[in-house]
């Protein structure tokens, strides 16, 4: 299914594709996979800094901050193309902090960060979750005491995925200990590499990927690094979560194509897999689901381009995609049989050991960025107006 772009935008997308065909190196792919497609690694920075200055990372941003003032549709298309090519795709800066600064930041802040985000020069890490604040973000406790010209920050974050490669922390802190919980949260920008008192410790997931816990011990953050209004952070987080909930799906299109190609050539006990009716039905079903995801995803861009903020639709896309990933991964294991469990580097490994990795990785996907249960709550309450308990 074609993406609804105008001619000019289509040309940009074509150019992006040509660029990817030429510039993607095996080293980039290896690092990218190793970092589970987050931005911030050395190879990733080299690569992105080659194309981002053309405006391709943030095409829909204003020109003065490094964008092309195109539609969101083009940005969605490029992001998905990046996912398809398995280059870094999770940009906490360009796609979450950036849009929030654009919407809520001061002019000074915009000038300071946006151009560098647009060129890929800097990357952010999100600092939301805490040991006692997962699904329930409002419960976060990291404390920022107002000291006039600065905030003094103490506490602990968990699941801060970019923290070990990023330059800045997009940090949610509690600035008011009284009153309703959601009215005491603020957002600070913290220089992760040049601020004393910050400790970043690795947490390793079942997919072997890294996320982090981050400790703040009497960390001074200048007041000018406060985003928007004090105690209004929860509103900004909610809005930014809507951005985060737009998940490109190109890697799974690619993976589907790889499985399909494998199925066309491989046999099991002498019989071609492609002629197995069970496999045919499953792959047809997944092709259809990919088509559905295509529309769920680009419809989000359509809504944005028409002045609407997707909210329940973003939850829907996130859930549909992440649950699809689990189905697809499981189907791959069924098609490959015992060969599917072989890891990258093992003798006889099929599709470079990707299937078993994805089988582990996709378990994380229905939890990261708001669990499937939370997304369904949102769909029911925001999308259908059903009452809270």
């Amino acid at each position, binding site marked *: *299914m*074609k993406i*609804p772009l105008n001619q000019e935008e289509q040309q940009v997308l074509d150019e992006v594709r040509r660029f990817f065909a030429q510039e993607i190196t095996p080293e980039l792919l290896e690092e990218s996979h190793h970092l589970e497609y987050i931005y911030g690694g050395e190879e990733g920075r080299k690569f992105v800094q080659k194309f981002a200055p053309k405006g391709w990372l943030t095409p829909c941003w204003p020109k003065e901050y490094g964008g092309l003032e195109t539609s969101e549709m083009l940005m969605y298309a490029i992001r998905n193309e990046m996912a398809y090519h398995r280059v870094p795709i999770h940009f906490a800066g360009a796609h979450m902090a950036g849009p929030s600064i654009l919407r809520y930041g001061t002019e000074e802040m915009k000038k300071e960060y946006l151009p560098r985000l647009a060129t890929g020069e800097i990357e952010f890490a999100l600092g939301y979750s805490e040991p006692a604040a997962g699904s329930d973000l409002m419960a976060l406790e990291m404390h920022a005491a107002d000291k006039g010209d600065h905030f003094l920050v103490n506490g602990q974050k968990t699941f801060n995925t970019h923290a070990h490669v990023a330059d800045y922390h997009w940090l949610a802190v509690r600035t008011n200990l009284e009153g309703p919980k959601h009215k005491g949260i603020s957002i600070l920008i913290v220089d992760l590499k040049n601020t004393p008192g910050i400790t970043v410790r690795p947490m390793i997931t079942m997919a072997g990927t890294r996320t982090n816990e981050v400790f703040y011990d009497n960390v001074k953050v200048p007041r000018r690094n406060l985003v928007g209004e004090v105690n209004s952070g929860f509103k900004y987080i909610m809005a930014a979560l809507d951005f985060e909930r737009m998940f490109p799906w190109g890697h799974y299109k690619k993976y589907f194509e790889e499985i*399909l190609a494998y*199925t*066309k050539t491989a046999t099991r006990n002498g019989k071609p897999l*492609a*002629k197995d*009716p069970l*496999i*045919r*039905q499953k*792959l*047809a*079903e997944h*092709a*259809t*689901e990919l*088509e*559905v995801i295509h*529309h*769920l995803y*680009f*419809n989000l861009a*359509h*809504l944005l381009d*028409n002045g609407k903020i997707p909210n*329940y*639709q973003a939850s*829907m896309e996130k*859930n*549909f995609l992440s649950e699809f990933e689990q189905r697809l991964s499981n189907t791959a294991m069924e098609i490959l049989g015992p060969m599917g469990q072989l890891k990258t580097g093992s003798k006889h490994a099929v599709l470079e050991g990707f299937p078993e990795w994805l089988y582990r990785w996709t378990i994380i996907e229905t939890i990261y960025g708001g669990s499937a*249960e939370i*997304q*369904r*709550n949102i*769909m*029911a*309450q925001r*999308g*259908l*107006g*059903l*009452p*809270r*308990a």
Partner: protein
Amino acid sequence: MSYELGVEQKMLKESARDFFSKEMNSALIRELEEDEKGYSPKIWKKMAKIGWMGLNVPEEYDGAAATFADLAAILEEMGHAGYAGPFFSTVVLGSSLLLKGGSEAQKEALLPKLAQGNHLLTLAYAGQAEPIAAADLPLQATAKEDGYVLNGVSLFVPFAHVADTIICAARIGSSAEEVSLFLVPKGTAGVAVQELQTMAADKQCEVVFDQVRLSRENLLGTAGSGWPVLQAVLREAAVAKCAEMVGGARKVLKLTVDYAKKREQFGRPIGSFQAIQHHCADMLTYLDTSALITHATCVQLAAGIPCDKQVSMCKSWVSEANRRLVGLGHQVMGGFGFMEEADLQIYYRRAKAAEQAYGDVARHREIVAAELGL
């Protein structure tokens, strides 16, 4: 394509919504299920007056020359309202068969009448199952000097009992090149029509052909040209069914959510229970995805882009999503939803009929698999 309907489609859709909200109601739906004809000639005339029968008929035959996407907009509202009648058989099947397969003379003779609502059509092609290859067609034609003799039993022919002309697909041999379409006027000797009692009470009929003699003039277009025309029309029919299903699904979700907000148990609206909320969230997902893929497929069909895979993805997806959506609706509405007097159960029965019409889920997935090169 855009993710929004065009201005004209929106207007069409709104006027259709208005029309049906005035003309259709729960009592009438039930009445028509019991009715011998299975439709309201009064409403039919009003629809004809608006010009819906001639929607996809070119202007030269007194039609409105609208696109398939326009037609789908109306069909969605029909599905929403629970409309019953020979619109699908006459317009989606009949006029499309005439346009794609008919001779100029046949078009001139029938399309204007059809567009005015004065001629009902239908299509007979299936036997006990959806035919996959030409050899599966249940009607056999034998060429004679002066024409053809048809024999066989076709089943599940919608509104054949009131059709002025039954268009039927018959085969002389077993290859696709040996399939012809025939126009069989009401009252043709040897043709016996009998209604079948179906779960959806939707006037599907058995049509028995017993030594039915037809002249060459009864051929739709030319001999041997029937198979590709039939396939093209069935593809459109599959997507048209999806449009109906989307409308039905929208209505079911509304019925369900309204109930969940209103019905109280344990001192609070049941819609505040997480299990109910998650059922509703899944229903919303089934609805939105069905609407998106149907819209995209209609746009491609309307543009004349070859899209066999797209059509089959659409039909398989929407059929299954709709069935699940209605099932969840029942789970939310509980005892209230499973009473005969609840409209929900009407949509439940029709969901299964729509799923089975023009290729079921497994059949369309097999088409997708073949298109994927498997």
